[in-house]
């Protein structure tokens, strides 16, 4: 297991329980989706795994290590891609400067080696040398998210957290980024923790899924099993609310 979370609890400001005894695991090179509506605690789980929040209780094992080790060592195991591609890059930094900063920090590569590594990373996410010298504002949302993915993959992490990473993109770009994620996983063997409210994108990228509601896991299992034959009422509702061909956007439209 690259990630093992056991009995995770997060209480905000003394009384609000955001995450209430959640356990899940991601195998090496595996892909786990956490789905749920807004406020279900899925993003809090991701932020705790990434080290942006501290758990109230519970244990997190990354690569068999306890995560209280230093941030730099942790960053080489787990990386994160954020929802908002417009603000998750420093607006003053060119694409190559952004990647170079990370490579210089995490690898012992010399200048020339870093340069060729930047080329490889850009190629991995479907960009090329033309994009290396430009600023984020000169790129589209999809291109920026590609840069964010390249930056996250730069330290060669074993686990990538994708926090609603395609939610801010329009549908055709979403499909491109999802394909990119499938290809990147095949190419690098990185595992995914895929946080989303959108069940329709889960099947494409993930092997397993847990469904969260109000800080608890209501259902978990293989993606096909959970999406095709949901057992929990909440999961049935979620699956039923995916728009599909023949869906009538009116009251009482087709139900699963």
């Amino acid at each position: 297991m690259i990630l093992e979370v056991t009995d995770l609890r997060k209480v905000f400001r003394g009384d609000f329980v955001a995450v209430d005894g959640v356990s899940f695991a991601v195998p090496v090179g595996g892909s786990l989706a956490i789905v749920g509506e807004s406020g279900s605690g899925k993003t809090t789980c991701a932020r705790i795994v990434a080290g942006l929040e501290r758990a109230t209780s519970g244990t997190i094992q990354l690569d068999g290590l306890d995560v209280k080790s230093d941030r730099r060592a942790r960053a080489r195991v787990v990386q994160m891609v954020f929802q908002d591609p417009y603000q998750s890059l420093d607006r003053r930094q060119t694409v190559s400067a952004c990647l170079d900063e990370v490579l210089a920090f995490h690898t012992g590569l010399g200048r020339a080696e870093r340069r060729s590594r930047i080329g490889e990373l850009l190629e991995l996410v479907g960009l090329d040398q033309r994009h290396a010298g430009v600023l984020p504002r000169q790129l589209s949302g999809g291109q920026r998210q590609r840069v964010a993915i390249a930056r996250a993959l730069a330290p060669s992490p074993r686990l990538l957290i994708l926090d609603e990473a395609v939610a801010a993109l329009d549908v055709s770009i979403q499909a491109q980024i999802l394909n990119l994620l499938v290809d990147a996983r095949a190419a690098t063997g990185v595992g995914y923790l895929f946080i989303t409210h959108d069940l329709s994108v889960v099947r494409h990228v993930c092997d397993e899924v847990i469904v969260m509601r109000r800080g608890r896991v209501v259902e978990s299992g293989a993606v096909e099993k959970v999406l095709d034959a949901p057992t929990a009422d909440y999961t049935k509702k979620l699956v039923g609310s995916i728009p599909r061909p023949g869906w009538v956007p009116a009251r009482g439209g087709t139900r699963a």
Partner: protein
Amino acid sequence: MTLALASPLRFPARRLAALGWATTVAGVICALVVLVAVFAPWIAPHDPNAVDPLNAFAPFSAAHPLGTDDLGRDLLSRLILGSRTSLAGPLVVIVVSGAVGTALAVSAAWIGGWFDAAVSRVLDILFAFPGLVLAITVAALFGAGFLAPVVALSLAYVPIIARVMRAAALRERSLPYVEALRVQGFSGWHICRRHLLPNLAPLLVVQAAISFGYAMIDLASISFLGLGLQPPAADWGLMIANGQPSILAGFPQQSIAAAVAVVITVVAFTVVAERMAAR
């Protein structure tokens, strides 16, 4: 996939036109004032301290374009030499208060918690104290001259810069790219120095430029009150004060010339700063 190209080249002339005539004129005046200050000893037609009592209160002439003062010193030369201290004072004030204010603001915004609360309260207290009063007090305690009022005013301008920069630093800090850098494992020092500060720099420049005008007026006021530079130094605030008795004698040139120099410089710097702020 198409790549958005950099905006097409803009010609300088069109760029100037886009700025508007007021900003252009103000910019040219700023540049001129700075050039005059830098090259003052070579531009001044006479020795600014050469006394010629027989030629006191000389009217406008080719030899003395602005006339002479009560001691027969050439007013134009004194105005030109005076630009040096009159610009250097506010410059030191904005550099010192800009550096101290920004360092306080960014560290308060980054560290947060009790440190932010403590810094903010100290700044509030300092803010409640009028800068001019502080400068006058310090000058009275430590003696008049160039340094004491400039140091006091630098201190007084720290909260003005720090308040704006803290708000901006808090906003910047909340942007997702800062969290992305934290997940990358970068230290707070690295993120502040390499990302927050460069992104805050344009705002700091604007704030400093706006404060420059205010600092200039404050320092001229201190000189006018006799707590700044002492005679026979050439300084615009001091010239306004020195010219005061002569106004009653019917020779207002000295005060008017120095006052006009202060007003034009302050307005020019402020117009340019406001224009930068609007972008």
